[in-house]
């Protein structure tokens, strides 16, 4: 009996850990999809971009904490380029993202010097999960706590940002682009900024995931858009009625819930290579069953 309990506990801990890491990805999707109203597919490339940059930097002995802002900036640069493609060259939003995603596949391989996966195996290579901060906490929960600290810090900073003039302008841009122009602000720049922020968050998520799994894999990004979007929608529908929760909190919960569903499906005995199929199928199921609720959310937004 204690064995089963132990397994369940272990599992829910890893669900929490990875769900929380994916929560940053979901926050990125929240920015592009919900706030900016921009279906951005570049995330499938920026998630592994964060991982690739991190794997390479850590192998070169760069401080693992420093990898977080660097990954963010790399993702932000990629998102910015998606924005430039869309705004300056008038390519449709979907196509701009697809172009960026495709280009990033190669960029990620260039960063990893051609190898489709990299491992950060040696203990000498620092990770935020083995550093000094980790030593402060009891070993069993240190990973979870470190992830929690990172996600909470990002969420708080993000919430603060959304209260600034600039952050509010992002909200306006997604809901009424004409008003941005009427306020004498370049709505194109606002979109680029929003996409930079969104993809920065996504790459940050990739950075954490790389340090968590000790590896970068070029294929990891496939489905990022779906995972993030599913988390956003689950968060916003399941917690639809909970007025006192901020949207960002709901999205974080959504991510943990979605990841738990995936994990349960895998644990029902399906082999790991079914993962993306499960990701897609779960999302589809949710879309079908929640269509009514979804409509309600859209109208509210």
């Amino acid at each position, binding site marked *: 009996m204690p064995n089963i309990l132990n397994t369940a506990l272990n599992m829910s801990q890893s669900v929490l850990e990875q769900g929380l890491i994916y929560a940053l990805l979901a926050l990125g999707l929240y920015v592009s999809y919900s706030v900016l109203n921009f279906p951005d597919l570049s995330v499938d490339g920026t998630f592994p971009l964060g991982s690739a940059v991190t794997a390479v930097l850590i192998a070169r002995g760069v401080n693992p904490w420093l990898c977080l802002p660097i990954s963010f900036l790399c993702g932000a640069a990629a998102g910015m380029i998606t924005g430039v493609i869309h705004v300056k060259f008038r390519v449709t939003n979907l196509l701009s993202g697809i172009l960026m995603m495709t280009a990033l596949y190669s960029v990620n391989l260039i960063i990893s010097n051609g190898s489709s996966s990299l491992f950060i195996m040696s203990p000498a290579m620092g990770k935020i999960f083995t550093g000094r901060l980790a030593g402060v906490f009891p070993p069993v929960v240190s990973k979870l706590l470190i992830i929690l600290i990172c996600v909470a810090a990002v969420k708080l900073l993000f919430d603060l*940002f959304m*209260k*600034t*003039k*600039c*952050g*509010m*302008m992002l*909200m*306006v841009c*997604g*809901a*009424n682009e*004409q*008003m*941005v*122009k*009427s*306020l*004498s*602000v*370049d*709505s194109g720049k606002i979109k680029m900024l929003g996409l930079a922020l969104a993809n920065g968050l996504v790459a940050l998520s990739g950075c954490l995931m790389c340090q968590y799994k000790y590896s970068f894999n070029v294929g990891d990004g496939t489905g990022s858009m779906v995972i993030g979007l599913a988390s956003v929608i689950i968060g916003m529908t399941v917690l639809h009625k909970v007025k006192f929760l901020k949207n960002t909190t709901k999205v974080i919960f959504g991510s943990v819930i979605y990841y738990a569903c995936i994990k349960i499906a895998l644990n029902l005995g399906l082999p790991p290579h079914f993962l993306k199929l499960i990701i897609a199928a779960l999302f589809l199921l949710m879309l079908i069953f929640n269509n009514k609720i979804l409509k309600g959310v859209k109208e509210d*937004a």
Partner: protein
Amino acid sequence: MLKLENIYKTYNPGLINETKVLEDFSLTVPKGQFVTVIGSNGSGKTTILNLICGTIFPNRGKIYLGGKDITAMTEYRRAKHIGRVFQDTQKGTSPNMTILENLSLADNKGRFYGLTPGVNRKRTNYYKELLAPLGLGLEDKMNVLAGSLSGGQRQVLAMVMCTMADIDLLILDEHTAALDPKTSELIIELTNKIVREKGITTLMVTHNLRHAVSYGDRLIMFHRGAAEMDLSGEARANVDVDDLLDRFNHISIESGN
């Protein structure tokens, strides 16, 4: 002063659906003048307003505002000097923001939207004073989302927002057309009050002939991209709704519809 000089505008030039709307069109509006514009559907009124605001650009011709050539200036840059209220009541406010947030953002127009707090609570009372005289009770709904307001309430809010900053020109495109008669009267009265108090140069397109004759200092009737009638001074003072209807019918018969 607003000046349009020899403007040509053709949509989809060279294509099957090419539409010539303006040919050698000129218009001068002196500073402080309140112009009402009427005209049948498709006569080119919105096209002219879009040209002035920079939503679209002319094929030929020049546009000046306050003596400055703005012909090639982008829409958002022009917006610093131009306020605009649309027929669509959704366009003037952000539905996902409260009244307070909408007003705060409008209050910052022309300045940088950076990393300082978007809402300055100290200004709340000032905003309430702006809203209170309008009699819609908006001042008690500062924390209500604009998206949950009625069309009329949103239009009032849009009107206040776009005249908050100092502007050189106010553009109104059938901004009362989507409202019920009572709200429409309220908005037109508010419009007149703001325009007169601030002495803003104003172009107002309307389908309401009574509004066209009761407000403003100058009346222009459009037909096929030209000013078919342009009255000011005494002629403008003596015109009534029946005269305008006569003229409309006359034009319709001439053009065979």
